[in-house]
């Protein structure tokens, strides 16, 4: 399946010469990081998790080729958050997701990248489904804030 979303209109991805990464961390938002997975598989697992755990809605962001991030709408506790991520990680049999899950457990907060990283551009929204007024809205607000900071960093 061909997915658009990395051909941006803004020049945000150009000239990123900083060696650090900016991300968004939250305990109450269910986030998934699918590496080396096709868009079709990501959409299937996001949809299945949403239905099973009644997560109201989700958005999918493409971070690079065959790498996707998923953010769900319903606010959950940290315990439930890790329950959901572990469920998806175990069922979809993705070792990268399992590794990411372990890292989030150590940090006690889920983090997803917002800024560009080396040759990879900022993650772009490629799919939206269901409600967006709760955690997805919060994520987009913080993402915008981070992007404004990135723009200012470039201007300085």
């Amino acid at each position, binding site marked *: 399946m061909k997915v658009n979303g990395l051909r941006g209109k803004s020049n945000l991805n150009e000239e990123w010469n900083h060696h650090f*990464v900016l991300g*968004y961390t939250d305990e109450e938002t269910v986030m998934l990081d699918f590496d080396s997975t096709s868009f079709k598989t990501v959409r299937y697992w996001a949809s299945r998790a949403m239905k099973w755990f009644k997560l109201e809605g989700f958005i999918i962001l493409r971070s690079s080729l065959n790498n996707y991030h998923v953010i769900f709408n319903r606010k959950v506790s940290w315990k439930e958050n890790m329950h959901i991520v572990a469920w998806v990680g175990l069922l979809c049999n993705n070792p990268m997701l399992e590794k990411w899950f372990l890292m989030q457990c150590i*940090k006690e907060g889920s*983090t997803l990248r917002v800024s560009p990283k080396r040759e990879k551009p900022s993650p772009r929204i490629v799919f939206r489904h269901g409600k967006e007024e709760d955690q997805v809205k919060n994520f987009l607000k913080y993402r915008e804030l981070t992007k404004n900071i990135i723009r200012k960093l470039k201007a300085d």
Partner: protein
Amino acid sequence: MYIINFAETVLNTNAKEGKTPMVKQIAIYGTYEAKVPVFQRYWKRRIDGVKQRYWKKTTRMKKVVESGRYEFHGKGKDLYKAIIKALQIMPKGFVDVSAIKFLKKPEKYGYEGEWVEREVKS
């Protein structure tokens, strides 16, 4: 009056349950090169006869390449200022701090250095 009482009740409930009000943060992470002080070990015999090992900070500095992470929370302007400051001050491991506190005393949370390009996981 009612509103103030209600707000206090909510805050007290959160404090009792051990909840932290701020859970959304901006993370800045990567690999850095910084000059850190060299620690020297020494032993001292305690009153009970056991030799206890201690560490003291020397004036010598060494260059290290490590990975670290800041987790900033706060308002937009403070976050921006904190990130600008974080370009020069490298984190001492995992630092979870409010942007205002970090801006007041950045040297408490890290060493001077610069971010370098290395493979980093989220």
